[in-house]
């Protein structure tokens, strides 16, 4: 993973991507016990995405292909990790990247989406595995309730949270 992050940091330094943050199962692993996964989700802002320009991942694929990395469907395999680059598709994703937590992996600087944003994004996506991840976060006690509440409120997710809590959390209260 260290080598993978090194390459992603180099992409940022070369201006191919803007700010980025690790999400998905690898991001959750920052806060929880290791969550088994075969790939890495990198939420990334694109430098050319402003002023209404068409959002395209082509510069990322071109750059990495030139560096000798191969693509597998929507993934690019970077130093043995299939990496999926995900430009934020809404305000929640943009905020999650902007407010990510700075950390290090074996001395390599990187950023991870906050626990509360990961939960809000999982709630918004709403698959069974997302709900399972939310429960892991709730049970772990790492969430800042006030911060999560503010995020859910800002992004219109309070109703969805209420439904989730009624279904999965009530019996534990």
């Amino acid at each position, binding site marked *: 993973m260290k080598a993978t992050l090194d390459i992603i940091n180099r992409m940022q330094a070369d201006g191919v991507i803007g700010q980025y943050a690790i999400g998905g199962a690898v991001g959750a692993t920052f806060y929880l016990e290791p969550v*088994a996964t075969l790939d890495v989700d990198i939420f990334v802002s694109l430098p050319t995405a402003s002023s209404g320009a068409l959002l395209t991942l082509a510069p990322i694929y071109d750059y990495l292909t030139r560096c000798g990395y191969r693509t597998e469907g929507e993934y690019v395999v970077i130093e043995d990790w299939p990496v999926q680059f995900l430009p934020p598709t809404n305000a929640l994703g943009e905020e999650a990247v902007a407010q990510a937590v700075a950390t290090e992996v074996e001395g390599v600087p990187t950023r991870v989406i906050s626990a509360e944003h990961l939960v809000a994004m999982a709630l918004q996506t709403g698959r069974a595995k997302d709900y399972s991840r939310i429960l892991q976060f709730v049970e772990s006690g790492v969430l800042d309730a006030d911060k999560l509440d503010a995020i859910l409120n800002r992004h219109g997710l309070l109703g969805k949270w209420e439904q989730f809590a009624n279904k999965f959390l009530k019996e534990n209260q």
Partner: protein
Amino acid sequence: MSEWLRKMLESKRRARQRLAALSFSEKLKLLEKLRDRSRTIALVREKPTKKYG
């Protein structure tokens, strides 16, 4: 809940807490091991099996 089940759940909870308390770098190394095992299992599954009968 039986005493045996309660002890087992408590033991699992402690193990999860212990793993969660590791550094991010250590946890990522564990993730890599898990990933490699999953790949090995997937490869074994892909091998054609001999059919009998």
